Every structure is written in structure tokens, then in C-alpha cells.
């Protein structure tokens, strides 16, 4: 069973009340993955969301001639899987455990129903997810700056 206190390690749940967090915790269960295990594949229906407690997960896509190219790694405290929340509800990338990974897997169908029934829970949850996405976007923009590039090549 997932304890509600564990959820405060993760940004999307910090705005919820203790009662709301307890409700969310009821849709979660601990799942561990061995190194090399795929959590989900690009193109599959997006069901589920994983809160990473320990270990590293790689998001990748297949590039002909380059194999699986990792576009992002996620670590403890981060939320893996956002595409369950908005259409087209398909995974954009493949997620693979880089080493042993311990996660809290959330039943996103149940979570969606909870959020739809209770906007007072759904709204702060959505804001929390927005914060996660915003952080990721800012970091991705920083990567786009190519700050470590050689000025000669600009």
C-alpha cells in the first residue's frame, strides 16, 4: 500500500490536502523494475503513471542508423508518464529502466475519475502536473541553447 506521505515527495501532489492525498494513494501500488525492463512502449495507449522512488528511467525513440536514442532520463522524485492526462493518449516515447527502479504506479483511470468527480482535487492535481511539465520545458529550452557548443560552430 502506498502511504499518502510518500506522495509529498512528488510535485503534483503537494497542493492536495491530506485527505485528497489519501484518496490518490489508494490508487497507487509499489512496482519495482529490473534493469533493462520496459515500462511502456512508444505508440501504445497511455495508461498509468509512475512516481520514481529510486533508480533511473530512460525515455527513448528509435532512430534508423542510431538505434534507441535516449532523449531524457528521469530519477527519484520525478513523474514518468503524462500522456494519460490529455489526448491523443498515446505514449510518445519508450520508457526503460536503466538500473533497478522502484516506483509507485498510479491507476490513472481511477485517478481521472477521481479528478472528474471532484474538481477541488482535479484542479490542484492538474496545476501540479503543469508544474512538472513547465520544469521539464524550461530544462529542455536550456538544452536547446546548446550552451556547451563551441562558438566557432555558431
Amino acid at each position, binding site marked *: 500500500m502506498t502511504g499518502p506521505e510518500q506522495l509529498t515527495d512528488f510535485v503534483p501532489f503537494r497542493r492536495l490536502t491530506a485527505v485528497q492525498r489519501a484518496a490518490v494513494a489508494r490508487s497507487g501500488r509499489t512496482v519495482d523494475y529490473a534493469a533493462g525492463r520496459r515500462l511502456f512502449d512508444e505508440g501504445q495507449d497511455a495508461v498509468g503513471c509512475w512516481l520514481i522512488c529510486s533508480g533511473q528511467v530512460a525515455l527513448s525513440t528509435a532512430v534508423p542508423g542510431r538505434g534507441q*536514442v*535516449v532523449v*531524457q532520463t528521469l*530519477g527519484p522524485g520525478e513523474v514518468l508518464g503524462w500522456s494519460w492526462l490529455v489526448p491523443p493518449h498515446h505514449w510518445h516515447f519508450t520508457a526503460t529502466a536503466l538500473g533497478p527502479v522502484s516506483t509507485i504506479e498510479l491507476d490513472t483511470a481511477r485517478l481521472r475519475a477521481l479528478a472528474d468527480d471532484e474538481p477541488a482535487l482535479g484542479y490542484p492535481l492538474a496545476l501540479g502536473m503543469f508544474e512538472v511539465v513547465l520544469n521539464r520545458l524550461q530544462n529542455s529550452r536550456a538544452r536547446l541553447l546548446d550552451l*556547451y557548443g*563551441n562558438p566557432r560552430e555558431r
Partner: protein
Amino acid sequence: MVPLPYRVIRRHLETRDSVSLDLEPVARRVAPFRPGQFTMLYARGVGEIAVSVSGDSSRADGIITQTIRDVGAVSRALHSSMPGQLVGLRGPFGTGWGIESAQGRQLVVVAGGVGLAPLRPVLLEAIRRHESHSRIVLIAGARSPSEFLFTDELDIWAAMPDVEVVLTVDQPADDWTGGVGFVTEPLSRLELAAGMTTAFICGPEPMMRFSATVLLGKGMAAQDIRISLERNMKCGVGLCGHCQLGPLLVCRDGPVVDFAVAGPLLAVREL
């Protein structure tokens, strides 16, 4: 301020555009350097640039290591210097990381690209004084897996019990089991004791700003975050006026400056 002649005795290729040169004094040697300081390195007939010392400050033989990235005319000339070649050296100048004032504290070192070079001396010093620092964390970012400096040493440090090394790259990578993401991402995930930690950050200016912001968000005081500034330098000794950043002369009041002082200055466009 006349340079002293130094001879290249070793040239080690670090990445596709960076080398580390070991320099030996021909006759007189410069004063011992403190981690974080820089020298003015002269390439015969081309010019002089400021380069942070990247070597071991505890060396008694007078040999200085400098890591050069080929980004311009002078650095290209220095970068292509072969063993036996002469360069001119003035220094060491500027402020150091000042690890002495972080006695007993945990250290978080954040390096971006070639910013790892000015940090290497303080990492070596911290490891030597490991009984003073219960925790040493190095988060190093690079463009891609092949662009990390000092790869042998990174492996050695990663294997040490008191040292945590996290590597991360900006560009999507194949054949890499390290992190992929901007250096602020593993930094955000770091759990640290804000009041007991001192941070040293070096790399491109936006990377230092973003990293300092993350650390401030974790409750660290701006005074406990030190960054290494860079500005155009001609003399390196406070006489030519080029290296100003507001009230600071980076060659004299820097390059290491704490973020309480540097942060507001870096926030002003074109200062």
C-alpha cells in the same frame, strides 16, 4: 608585467576541441596557485588569454596544468602547442574557490562543459581534505558523452566512497547509460542540507544562473553559492579596464564571486 617562459611537456587530448597541457618553468616559476585562480597564457606572436588553472595545487614541482579549448585565435594556438614548445605565463591571479571557508560543510560542485576545468583543482583539494567534508557531490553536464573532460578521473572519483558523481548530457545520446538532461535536472533531484552546504558552480553563464536558482530554491543562502565569472581580459591585473562587471573587476574581485554579489549583476542585460 612580463611573462615567464614555460615549456609544454605534455599534451593530453581531452575532447575533440580541448587539450590539457602540462607546463614546466624554463627558469623562474610563478607563485603557487590556489584552486580557482587563473593565469594569462601567451602564445608566441598570437596573443594572451586568461585560462583558469586546472591542475593539482598541491604539486611542489612547479608544473602547471592548463586545459585549453580551441574557441579563438589565441586558444587555437595554445591548443595546438606540442611538447617542447614555449609559451608565456603570468599569474596566478584572482580569487580562489576558498574551500578553507567551507570547512566541515558538505560540498556540491556543479560543472558545465569546460567549466569542469577550473573546478578540478578544488575537487582534488576537497578529496585530499575529505575528513573536512562529509559529502562531496559533483554534477557535471556536457554536450554529449564524448565531451566530458578528465574522463579517467571522473571514474576514479565516482569509485570513491565519499564522492558522488552524476554525469548528464544535453543532447540525446545513443550508447550512454548516464543521465540525459540539463545539469539543473539532477541538481533539482539532489537532497541537500541547505544550511550545511557550500556550492561551487562553473560553466556558461546561463547554466550558472539556472543552477544557482535551483539551489536558492532548495533554501541555500546566496552567499554559500560561489560561481566563476569570465570577462574579456587584457592585463589580468586590474589595469586595463576590460573585465568590469558593474563594480567588480573580474581579474581582481573574481573570478570566483559569491552569488549574493554576482546574481544581481548577472541579471542586468549587457552589464
